[in-house]
């Protein structure tokens, strides 16, 4: 299975995402922001970082990158897409996911090991987890506060589209403690915490994050 990982200028966690795909026995394919081509991949990861410096608004420029036009089209046809941190911000800016990410409520960048509760294990990226499982993965962001209007929140909650929720103290002021969400179809998932930094207990707090990449590999094997 071929999994593409996009690099924009200013992307930082692309090496980590590529490594995570390899850990899950997938074929990791680097994609470049200026390309109009997904190189025949079966899924795409939009990794973390500060695309184009994120000076205007996180993800606001990246959504216009040529490669993102291809990603939007493929996602709408059902291709599994995962946005991590800046990737989540980009997917929100690209309207693949609802809502927006704003400055943390305490205004500081926060890097910490964060417990998350898996609320939805039916998406393309979460089938390996038991429902209600708690996982420990790094969170590291300055603009990770999830915001959406009441109607959207009701829709997300009502349709079970909240995928991950923060456990314990809310680290960034996210509405309803939301850490990650999915689209109606369940193929596009975005989250602020970093599962790709938790694939090996040597370099991460746990290997709890690996389940997301294994889930993806499973989904294609089944299909």
């Amino acid at each position, binding site marked *: 299975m071929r999994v593409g990982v996009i690099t924009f*200028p*200013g992307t*930082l*966690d692309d*090496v*980590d995402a590529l*490594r995570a795909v390899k850990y899950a026995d997938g074929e990791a394919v680097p994609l470049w922001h200026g390309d109009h081509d997904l190189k025949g991949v079966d899924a795409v990861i939009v990794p973390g*970082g*500060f695309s*184009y*410096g*994120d*000076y205007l608004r996180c993800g606001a420029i990246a959504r216009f990158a040529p490669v993102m036009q291809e990603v939007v089209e493929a996602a709408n046809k059902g291709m599994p897409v995962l946005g991590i941190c800046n990737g989540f911000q980009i997917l929100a800016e690209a309207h693949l996911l609802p809502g927006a990410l704003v400055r943390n409520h*305490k205004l*500081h*960048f*926060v*890097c*910490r090991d964060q417990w998350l509760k898996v609320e939805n294990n039916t998406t393309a990226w979460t089938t390996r987890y038991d429902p209600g499982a708690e996982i420990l993965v*790094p969170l*590291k962001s*300055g603009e990770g506060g999830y915001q959406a209007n009441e109607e959207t929140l009701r829709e997300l909650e009502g349709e079970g589209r909240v995928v991950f929720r923060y456990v314990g103290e809310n680290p960034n002021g996210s509405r309803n403690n939301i850490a990650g969400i999915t689209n109606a179809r369940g193929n596009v998932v975005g989250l602020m915490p*970093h599962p*790709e*930094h938790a694939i090996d207990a*040597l*370099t*991460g707090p746990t290997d709890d994050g690996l389940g997301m990449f294994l889930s993806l590999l499973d989904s294609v094997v089944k299909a």
Partner: protein
Amino acid sequence: MIDTVKNAESTPDQEQPYKELGLKDDEYARIKEILGRRPTDAELAMYSVMWSEHCSYKSSKVHLKYFGETTTDEMRSKMLAGIGENAGVVDIGDGWAVTFKVESHNHPSYVEPYQGAATGVGGIVRDILAMGARPLAVMDPLRFGKPDAADTKRVLPGIVAGVGGYGNCLGLPNIGGEVVFDESYQGNPLVNALCVGAMKVEDLHLAHASGAGNKVILYGARTGLDGIGGVSVLASETFDDTAGKRKKLPSVQVGDPFTEKVLIECSLELFEKGIVVGIQDLGGAGLSCATSELASAGDGGMHVWLERVPLRATGMTPAEILSSESQERMCAVVEPANVEAFMEVCRKWDVIATEIGEVTDGDRLVITYHDEVVVDVPPRTVAHEGPVYHRPIERPADQDELQANTPDSLPRPAGDELLELVKTQAASPNLASKRWVTQQYDRYVRGNTVLAQPSDGGMIQIDEETHRGVALSTDCNGRYTKLDPYEGAKLALAEAYRNVAATGATPVAVTNCLNFGSPEDPGVMWQFEQAVKGLADGCAELGIPVTGGNVSFYNQTGSTAILPTPVVGVLGVIDDVRRRIPTGIGAEAGETLLLLGETKDEFGGSEWAHVVHGHLGGLPPKADLKREKLLGEVLVAGSRDGMVSAAHDLAEGGLAQALVETCLIGETGARVFLDGDLFTELFSESAGRVLVAVPRTEEQRFTDMCTARALPWRKVGVVDPESNALEIQNLGQLPLDELREAWEGTLPALFD
């Protein structure tokens, strides 16, 4: 009108503002002698900035020679590049070379905390990049004034946000550092930045411009009016704006980490393609420094067409273009046949690249501006043949009095007060958890961080196949150095060495950042001379070389100097990072706690004397580097054979603080039993000690090894996962929740 060489020749008596630019009469006279005429404005700008204390090391040079004199061939055997290069380089095995260096950005960070700290990170990262290495991690030793002072509340949050804002956006994990508070840093915080990088041995790039006809390419950000005169004004005298009549932007440069990230990736791709002959970063003194250093390190001269430099401001003079310290710029020397390939890579990364010059036959650096010659100098006279001062040295008159004022007569706690002191000391700003600071730094990016704060040392994996890695620690206790600069520098080295060894790595090389007061004060020069000697002698005893360093003078408020602060960084190698030793206990139930080393009644400069009595006097603990070396060997052997499950070095706050930290970091309780005077046992700061946890099954084997190697050891307790408390026999219990609140509550209460 542009001041050209022709003009300078025809107006030999024209007055020049050399004093305002920081040059002394005799220095100006020497420039005239070198050139055989008066310098042009552009030449004067170049010489003044390159001959400043910051760039020329004119006050420290004669002392720094001692590092070279005390380094033996054996110590040098693993060193691929040393003092004088952008950064030292060490062969760590498996074909890997590692480069690391610390630099100061103290003065800019006081003026503008966020940008000062941010560009400090940016500068040191480019130094590492200029060696041909991929920058892998950063660390930031920081020092501030009193924690509750109003100015600390201005400076600290800005500096921390700047380090994080730049480093996080650059994508480099921050794996350690220091946060220290002392009144002496009140008007002069210390912001030191360390970067470590790695490359394959054959990819080492040194800064030189060889081969006539080769092209000089400036790439990265445009050149603007920021930071003009920053180096000479900020780093060589005081903050008075003596150059107020010149148009300029704020003296502190403004950083753009996104541009730097792209510059790194672009440079690494250029290195990989093998199309770079020589490379130099643009830092302090900008193009003046880059062109003169590249030219003087090569085998020919250089011609630079200054009007080709891409600018971000209009109307800049040649002198301004040469002195600008705009960030995120690099200068490369490229063979003509490879220029197009070079440009192609830069276009891919949207990096502006401009051919601004050419390597020439001959030995002059000639800079023209629209066909008029504005600089014509022998480059070595600018870059390397600056003035050398033999500053007066005198042991301060009050040094004897300071040392005679020992802590021996201070009232010591007993009974219940001891338990209370464990907690109050853990909550004191210097010993309290630095989580408030470090959680603003990304420690995970790039996925190779094995250990990071609050571990004794930071550790990164260099090779994902073989698991080879390096560990790093920086340390310095300025109070020790104040009491005895020679011994204090050795103690800083000993602690950094011990911290690295406590992770399971073998220490191999040393870097430093020597932060001192004014070199014009003979007492400060004495401290400096003593500290250099102590550090160099200590390195010789340990058998590891100093591979590079940085000197920062004029760290003072009015005439009061900071505590002498020679920050020492030690690099260690570990052949398999999976063997790293963590700091926290509790990996296995029933581990035994052993104290390695000897505890003596040593309280001079201690945290107890400082926190409880506000006292500084006497002599610091004795450094015994042979013992440190033995301790290191035992720890590495223990890690290699899987005999040690946790290790934590004893430093400020003694055994009490080490126990608190190892319990809290490991989220596990312990029962401790001590003999002798409990106050000394718990709070003495004797060097050469490490607390280790060993699995019960390994206890015999490990202690036998210690005994065989004549390393003193004592069983001081057991790990107790059930208790959730630190229990000290005959004193009582401290619940971990209570300790955590004390340890972690201090900084948020001060700065949130």
